[in-house]
């Protein structure tokens, strides 16, 4: 059952091939047997899952089952879950149990999905390797000496290891797409505002967006149907109707214009990755898509702009973790200053502290214009690049990351090298555009991801082409040997 897609599981549940309790128990068993090898799941909610599954079975029996009724999934530990510890991968929130659900969590519960537990992640979603988690690194099921990517590395690795058929994730600069690529699964970051941010612990509010991770584009479509909603509780949520993302999966891609930005195939791209991506593009061309050379001339500015804007917002977003109201508080503070200082020094990891300091610096009097002000201007240029490009193409494609999964510690001493891991993904967050990664090949037995960037609210078209690609390729069905 663990090799079934969500689409297949839904059919199986509805046809009573197996019950949700059986299915849930099966995945719980897999988690307890295999999770030690990958450290992908940091909280398992067995009891809760089994009772939700029993309820789902009742609804299935009664014939009033909602779309994802009885399907077990995992939530990234960035989403608040009522009564279940929500740590955001940090010591700071190791003891935090929210009294509310994130809207995303609520939406899945409404549609009958069963929560198996919470997945590991880079602390406060800050990282591209899952090495910054307070709960230890996640291991890539394809090569356990290598990183799964980040920050949604726990969700990606859990799916690759067949610990769950789908998982929620978030993407601020590539945190869905990069781990999806490195773990050989499919992941979609929707348009900014498509999925509610309520109850999702903020990293950089203007960039954060939640999205689905699963093995196939079709499964991502099923999950996005459930996740996407207008939410009055999130002022940046967009009040636009949610289409049925599965409805257009079968559309022909004949005549589709795919823009290939030259900047995404330049220096720094691993040759094996380039070969895999170009092969994928050729496959699509063979299906009738038209490849169009384009340029996104300000691409080289996206990483520096991002590493001003994201830390600036984070520096304010993380100020609430001060030891006063909840979360970690240092022992025996001697005064208020000491409490703030030690609670935050002891409660936050190194990367989080680095970004808080960068952000604080960028916003400081005398530096604001040179950093934050400038970065916002760059952001507009990048947006403009994309809107110019979308005048002549339907979608933009290229590699998701410069190279396959790297080994643990390989970039540990060099934050900038780590930041360049997101060089192809960051621009879409700055522009607020949707981006997706689907498996498109293997290099040295590690997966490679094809990135698909769409225009605003064009997720259906992205899913359509990704699905069509998966009809003619088999990369998405490959599994690491150890978990088959």
């Amino acid at each position, binding site marked *: 059952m663990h090799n079934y897609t969500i689409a297949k599981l839904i059919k199986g549940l509805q046809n009573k091939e197996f019950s949700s309790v059986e299915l849930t128990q099966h995945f719980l068993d897999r988690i307890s047997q295999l999770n030690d090898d990958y450290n992908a799941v940091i909280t398992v909610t067995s009891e809760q899952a089994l009772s939700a599954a029993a309820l789902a079975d009742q609804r299935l029996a009664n014939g009033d089952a909602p779309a994802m009724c009885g399907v077990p999934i995992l939530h990234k530990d960035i989403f608040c879950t009522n009564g279940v510890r929500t740590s955001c991968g940090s010591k700071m929130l190791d003891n935090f149990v*929210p009294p509310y659900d994130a809207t995303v969590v609520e939406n899945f519960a409404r549609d009958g999905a069963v929560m198996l537990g919470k997945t590991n992640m880079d602390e406060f979603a800050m990282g591209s390797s899952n090495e910054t988690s307070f709960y230890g690194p996640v291991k890539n099921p394809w090569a356990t000496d290598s990183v799964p990517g980040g920050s949604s590395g726990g969700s990606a690795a859990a799916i690759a290891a067949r610990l769950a058929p789908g998982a929620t994730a978030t993407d601020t600069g590539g945190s869905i797409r990069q781990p999806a690529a490195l773990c050989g699964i499919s992941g979609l970051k929707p348009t900014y505002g498509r999925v509610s941010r309520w109850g999702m612990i*903020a990293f950089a509010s203007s960039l954060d967006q939640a999205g689905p991770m699963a093995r196939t584009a079709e499964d991502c479509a099923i999950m996005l149907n459930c996740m996407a909603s207008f939410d009055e*509780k999130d002022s940046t949520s967009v009040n636009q109707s949610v289409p049925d993302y599965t409805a257009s999966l079968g559309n022909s891609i004949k005549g589709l214009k795919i823009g290939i930005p030259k900047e995404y195939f330049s220096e720094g791209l691993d040759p094996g990755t380039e070969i895999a991506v170009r092969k994928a593009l050729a496959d699509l061309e063979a299906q009738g898509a038209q490849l169009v050379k384009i340029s996104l001339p300000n691409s080289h500015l996206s990483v520096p702009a991002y590493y001003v804007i994201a830390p600036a917002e984070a520096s*304010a977003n993380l100020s609430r973790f001060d030891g006063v109201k909840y979360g970690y508080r240092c022992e025996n503070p001697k005064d208020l200053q000491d409490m703030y200082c030690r609670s935050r020094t002891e409660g936050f990891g190194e990367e989080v502290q680095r970004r808080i300091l960068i952000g604080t610096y960028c916003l400081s009097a005398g530096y604001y214009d040179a950093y934050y002000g400038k970065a916002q201007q760059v952001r507009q240029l990048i947006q403009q690049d994309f809107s110019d490009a979308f005048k002549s193409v339907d979608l933009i494609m290229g590699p998701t990351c410069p190279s396959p999964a790297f080994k643990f510690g390989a970039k540990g001493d060099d934050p900038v090298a780590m930041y360049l891991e997101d060089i192809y993904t960051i621009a879409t967050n700055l522009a607020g555009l949707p981006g997706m990664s689907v498996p498109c090949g293997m290099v040295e037995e590690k997966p490679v991801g094809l990135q698909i960037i769409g225009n605003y609210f064009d997720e259906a078209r992205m899913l359509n082409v990704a699905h069509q690609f998966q009809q003619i390729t088999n990369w998405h069905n490959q599994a690491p040997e150890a978990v088959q």
Partner: protein
Amino acid sequence: MNWETVIGLEVHVQLATKTKIFSAASTSFGATPNTQACAIHLAMPGTLPVLNKQAVNYAIMFGLAIDAEICQESVFERKNYFYPDLPKGYQTTQLEKPIVGRGSVTIQLADGTEKAIGIHHAHLEEDAGKSTHEGDLPYGMSGVDLNRAGTPLIEIVSEPDMRSAEEAIAFAKKLHSIVTSIKICDGEMSQGSMRFDVNVSVRPAGSSALGTRTETKNLNSYKFMEEAIEREVERQIDLIEDGGTVAQETRLYNGDTKVAKSMRSKEEANDYRYFPCPDLLPVLVSDEAIEELRRALPELPDARQKRFVSQYVLSDYDSEIIASDSNMSAFFETVAKDSSNAKLAANWVMGELSGALNTAGLSFIESPVTAQQLAGMVVRISDNSISGKMAKQVFEAMWQGEGNADEIIQAKGLKQVSDSGALEKIVAEVLDGNPAMVEDFINTDESKRKKKLGGFMGQIMKASKGQANPQQVNQILLQKLNALL
């Protein structure tokens, strides 16, 4: 040397919305600590603000009331600093694009002149919670009450246009009058509904350059404000005249102990690292929305004052006092209309009733005597049923909840005797019964006779049990005495 004082005010006005600026939590005052702090204002992880539209409308109404430009795309920013009663570690406020732009407020001074005070801007923001360092807290800890956190405020920033404490107080009172008249604030200063930060500097008279200013924060009464300004002016002048210089600093004034002290110097001031709040979209306000609010804007105190003069023929002085208070105005108008005697209505509302309410610490809304009841009494004064003196008794009884004027007049047998036959009889009896007094009156020099009337009046009022109409008695008495000369 002659010194000129320069004063600018920053006024925090709590908006009278039912719920907080970014959540549905209640804003009511005086609840048990932390019972009105929802997840949003506790800054729980993952929570997000949603702007209260009523707060935006109230801010726009204030802008319209002071004839200011309304910013049609104002922006909320984060003002970053750490403090335990600031749960998010930043205050959501406005800086570069405040919702209310330049405007002006006219103040009336004691000598009858008027002066326009410029408003630099007014912006929307959230209030912080309260830290408490006293009371029943274990281990010498401090307490934090977040009930107030997220209460919507507008901060009104004036130009440095005031030149004395008197002008500053007049300005503060005028703002109070405006925000209560348009009903965007309950005006309860003792509950912190309006709080004043006072920027004070001095300069040699005739100089146009501004001196270094200090800011005294969080004054919540006119009296404290006046004291704080006067002391600060004195301190600055003394300092400069002794060869020192004024340091730019934030100061505190304790109205109870009368102690003023420095809180922090300019060097110690925070770098607030403002930047636009990414959780909130720019606040867009259409022309139509502004016009709709303009049409619905309640009458402003200045317009009301002019109307009172023309409609009720009140004096400038009376009309100004009444019009400055919207509740008093409403009360007065009911009394005036129901009694058809505006002058007497004004006297009673401004005099006896205001005094009694003041002593009891009540507002006009909480008055134990209703406007209808007071009107009923004014009618009885107007138709000579009761004298002014009796009216005071009636008022007292109404205040004690003993009923309407007519019921009280009946119950206490207070009816004024205006029947001239009956009065003549009483006067005659008193004169007959006091021959010595009559003799004395006749023998008194004409220019001093008036003073002797009081004795007779006392006797007559006593004989009538206080019910005789004094004007009529006076007339009859003079007639009868003059006849004896």
